[in-house]
């Protein structure tokens, strides 16, 4: 049985797909058979970030509607061979994701994989609800600003009330907070909420803090999960998050401004 992890946030543009790509890559790199599913039907992006958009033939909706088999739709990652991608359809609507259809796909994948990472669309509508319904764990991606925190709170409420675990009265979905686009300088100037602020408001355990970085954008544009940028702070922060997800204890980094560290890394790397 696979562990099913949804990457969700409520708010758009906070880094769900970036996180899905890096977390799934990180899990796969540690030898776990991992599949990442793009639930953002109609606005598919995951295949771009994973650099496999030219290899998409069949998609998630095709599989649900019986037009293709899972094997036809799954794309094997070229960099990490235990990682597969199930892309979203660009031409359908989110309603094509029926509960029964999604359940069948998840069950089938569950037999073959160790981890299923579900990349949720933004919002709290059908697509997002389908992405989180079967989850065992949730990574709630949050930016350190008020509206993102509010939306994350909303999604946490939905996880507690509308997930399969909630409906069946099982143990609740395990929640993880992942703070992205964190800029310690702006926090110290009072322009952003601090880690402590967000933790205090949302009251769930912190999985990691991903610093705001140009490298994240560059990696996305190149179709490279940022976790593979091993010299970057963002890449290392994602690697820490994956380790913690697997139960390792790792100290949190990149939470305070460290100009010096930045320069020393520059010189070392250069």
């Amino acid at each position: 049985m696979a562990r099913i992890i949804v990457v969700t946030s409520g708010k758009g543009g906070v880094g769900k797909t970036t996180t899905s790509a890096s977390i799934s890559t990180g899990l796969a790199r540690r030898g776990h058979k991992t599949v990442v599913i793009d639930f953002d039907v109609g606005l598919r992006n995951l295949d771009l970030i994973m650099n496999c958009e030219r290899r998409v033939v069949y998609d998630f909706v095709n599989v649900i509607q019986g037009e293709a088999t899972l094997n036809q739709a799954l794309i094997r990652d070229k960099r990490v061979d235990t990682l597969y991608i199930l892309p979203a359809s660009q031409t359908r609507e989110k309603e094509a994701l029926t509960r029964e259809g999604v359940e069948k796909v998840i069950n089938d994948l569950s037999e073959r994989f160790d981890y299923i990472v579900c990349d949720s669309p933004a919002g709290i509508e059908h697509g997002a609800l389908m992405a989180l319904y079967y989850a065992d764990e949730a990574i709630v991606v949050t930016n350190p600003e008020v509206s993102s925190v509010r939306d994350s709170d909303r999604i946490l409420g939905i996880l507690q009330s509308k997930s399969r675990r909630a409906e069946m009265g099982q143990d609740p979905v395990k929640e993880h907070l992942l703070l992205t686009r964190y800029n310690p300088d702006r926090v110290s100037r009072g322009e952003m909420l601090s880690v402590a602020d967000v933790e205090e408001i949302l009251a769930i355990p912190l999985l990691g803090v991903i610093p705001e970085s140009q490298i994240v954008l560059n990696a996305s544009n190149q179709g490279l999960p940022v976790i593979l940028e091993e010299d970057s702070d963002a890449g290392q922060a994602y690697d820490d998050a994956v380790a913690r997800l697997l139960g390792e204890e790792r100290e949190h980094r990149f939470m305070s401004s460290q100009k010096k560290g930045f320069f020393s890394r520059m010189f070392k790397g250069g």
Partner: protein
Amino acid sequence: MSETAVSGVKQCFQLKSASVSMTALELYFFDDEEFESTLRDKISQAPGFFKDIPLIVSLEKYEGLSSELDFFKIIGTCRRHNIHVIGVRGGNDDQRRLARGASLALLPGGNQRDREIDTGPETESAEAIDSPAPPRVENHGEPAPARIINQPVRSGQQVYAPDGDLIILAPVQAGAEVLAAGNVHVYGPLRGRALAGIHGAEHARVFCQSLEAELVSIAGHYKISEDLQDNGWKTAVQIQLRDDLLVVTPLEKA
């Protein structure tokens, strides 16, 4: 005219939100004679209950023709039996236009659960519904059990204790709403909206460990966040109603 605690110029009146339990007449079709005979029959079962009650006509299950709906006749018949038709609920545009023509208030269609009113010999329950005054009938049996919530109440969630107290052992987040007929206790920060005494119990109170609320209301008297910040903000407080004013007092450590 008695003095109130309200300082400054005294206004002629004050508007308050009120929620009153009322009887709805669920109309399936309308025939003047049949209406009156059915009404007479119902009243004969519990004459005291129907005396001078307000009534709303619910059209949500109305199956007859709109043209057959004669609100003037309905009002007249009810009036002869000392029942005051005050408005209609639901119905299509035509039906609502007719109701408006008869000077009836228009209430939105409800998905609220209506209880079937028992007009049997038991008058005790009927009296409880009858009493339009806010204080609930004290029953001398067991108090209504408190509803206890252990998890955070998140944005968009609503928790409701329709009969008694509501006790929350976790934060109430911004954008969440907690409501109780009795007191509201929040053993955590109260960042959302808290409404105590929603059926009109003016003795109800709100307790919280950190007052950061968007709104606090007791028996329809409310204060919004802006008006709460001067007193006890982000500290442990209780809020109660005194002379129609919400009073915030710190919770002293014993």
